[in-house]
């Protein structure tokens, strides 16, 4: 028993998966020699090694095209690796393509048996689970209608219900929690939690980091088919945020005035420096939640330019804009006659949940539309707290008990 518990239920050893459809030559080689000829070209996954233990919830994250879906297909044994070795112990139930393989002419009831058989269930086992499945799907009497009359929501609800009531041992989840309406989603989450408590192993792919952080024990970050990092959830998620921020920064630059090559090559307003200071006046890396702060931005400008608009934004590492404060919102004008100056923004409190935040300053034309110049991420601030937090904000508060 103890040795079994120590055995990983999913193990990848140096696994690579060629991306391209195998060509005729590779296929004939496979036919003649039983393996693929040396593959040239792109890889969806390269040199992937990791293991997942029983009962773990293992997250896989990465931007689109990182290889997450290819990885799930390998675990499901739907595809085979081009090179390397994969060991999977236990019944794998994909929560992917829910309802794939439903026969439109048949009732939901008949499709339960068919779908369960595809997942490797015996008829007698399915018969025992069928009431739970119908109950959970909430389809009621409509279970006896042909599935071609179902809405797409009913389709996935039935698919999900079959998957989670057919004794899964390893569940593969790909963004699936976006199925159905809010109340069904809540039901799904609590059912998944039940399964987790029963020792079911989860392989969880998601773009929603709050789900990943809430559910996963460990996380693997993939980028273009390679492992960037495997480890503790928060560390890996922060790395992912950083990768996204770098990418979106590149995208923003292409719309910047300077990069556009606007008239004269130099924009009419340039941000020469931006500074952050904490409550003591220094430039701390960390501040407790709820601290005040102060931002100064130096600029140079063409004295005749119509008054520009300065935005100070604060982004969470995941790219969410927490604040975007513009002087024009408050009816304040930036003086241009002197050809230079400094804008100071004093913030009374930063009511932010613990985490990492980046400050940006961007100056736009007088309409606030075309960006002239930007000081990107001039400050990375770590907000700390001495107590647990959930959600995005940390509001000043007090509790009052009445008896």
């Amino acid at each position, binding site marked *: 028993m103890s040795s079994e518990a120590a055995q990983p239920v999913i193990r990848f050893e140096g696994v690579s998966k060629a991306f391209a459809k*195998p060509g005729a030559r590779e296929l004939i080689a496979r036919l003649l020699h039983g393996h*693929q000829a040396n593959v040239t070209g792109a890889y969806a996954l390269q040199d992937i090694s990791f293991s997942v233990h029983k009962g773990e919830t293992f997250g896989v994250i990465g931007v689109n095209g990182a290889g997450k879906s290819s990885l799930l297909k390998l675990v499901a044994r739907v*595809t*085979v690796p081009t090179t390397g070795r994969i060991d999977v112990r236990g019944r794998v139930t994909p929560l992917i*393509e829910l309802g794939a393989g439903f026969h439109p002419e048949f009732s939901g009831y008949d499709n339960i048996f068919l779908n369960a058989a*595809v997942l490797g269930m015996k008829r007698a086992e399915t018969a025992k689970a069928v009431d739970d499945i119908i109950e959970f799907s909430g389809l009621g009497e409509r279970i006896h209608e042909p599935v071609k009359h179902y809405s797409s929501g009913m389709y996935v609800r039935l698919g999900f219900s079959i998957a989670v009531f057919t004794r899964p041992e390893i569940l593969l989840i790909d963004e699936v929690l976006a199925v159905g309406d809010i109340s069904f989603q809540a039901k799904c989450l609590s059912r998944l939690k039940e399964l987790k408590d029963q020792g079911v192993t989860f392989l969880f792919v998601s773009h929603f980091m709050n789900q990943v952080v809430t559910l996963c024990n460990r996380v693997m970050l993939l980028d273009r088919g390679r492992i960037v990092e495997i480890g503790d959830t928060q560390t890996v998620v922060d790395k992912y945020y950083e990768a996204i921020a770098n990418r979106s920064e590149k995208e923003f630059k292409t719309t910047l005035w300077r990069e556009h090559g606007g008239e004269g090559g130099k924009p009419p307003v340039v941000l020469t420096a931006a500074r952050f200071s904490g409550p003591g006046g220094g430039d701390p890396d960390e501040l407790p939640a709820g601290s005040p702060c102060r931002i100064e931005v130096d600029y140079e400008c063409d004295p005749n330019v119509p008054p520009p608009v300065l935005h100070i934004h604060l982004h969470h590492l995941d790219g969410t804009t927490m604040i975007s404060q513009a002087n024009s919102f408050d009816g304040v004008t930036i003086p241009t006659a002197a050809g230079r100056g400094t804008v100071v923004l004093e913030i009374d409190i930063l009511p932010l949940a613990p985490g990492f935040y980046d400050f940006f300053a961007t100056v736009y034309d007088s309409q606030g539309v075309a960006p002239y110049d930007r000081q990107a991420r001039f400050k990375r601030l770590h907000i700390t707290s001495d107590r647990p937090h959930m959600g995005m904000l940390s509001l000043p508060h007090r509790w009052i008990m009445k008896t």
Partner: protein
Amino acid sequence: MISALKELYRHRELLSLLTGRELAARYKQTAARGLWAVFKPMSQLAVFVVVFGSLLEIPHVHMPYPIFVLIGLMAWNWFSTSVSRGAEQLLAQGSLLCKSAFPREIFPLTQVLVALADFGMNLVLLVALCLIHGVGPYWTWLLAIPVSLGVLLFISGLVLLFSALNMLFRDVGHGLGLLLQIGMYLSPVFYPAAVIPEKWRVLYFLNPMAGYIESLRACIGLGQIPPPLPLGMAIAGTAAALAGGYFVFKRIEPVFPDVL
């Protein structure tokens, strides 16, 4: 190979479920329902009886022509329907193929079993014809069961082969229709093998369907034991087709989802 067969056996319920599904789905939303299963072979039979039974004279038949031609037709239809539909199955079931891991041969084999149901329907029709024409019953009718089993295995082998090859080259699917048409003329469906000149006979029986059809006719229509050489060659061909087909299928199976 053994483990692959074990795996297939473990999923036998899926095979029967898929077959049942196909059968039930076939005549949904038709007014005549199951009558189609009888109507189709009867109309085909009528055409053959009119054209070859009365307009053209076919020698060496030795039994009422409707019985003669129905045996040929039912065996050939089983074969050609299974092979042509089975070859397309893996493509048609692509979404299931990408969903879960189970023996892929289930899909093409489903079609063999579905067509077997038609064969069974025809068998009822055949018994009725025999009784009308006063043919039999003979004890050799029982021999039709093992012979049919041979046909089943032969068809399965070819279906596995062609369905796998069709995944590699879609040309297979296109060429197959043509091949099956030629194959029907090269098999004793509406004429007896006896019309083939003696010196070509052995070559002719390299086609296992020829041996099987002749054997079915001997034991059902004539009350005789199947001719040893044609049946022996058919059994040898079946073993080769089954082993080859299964081998090729298992070799290509791992990449099916990649080439969909």
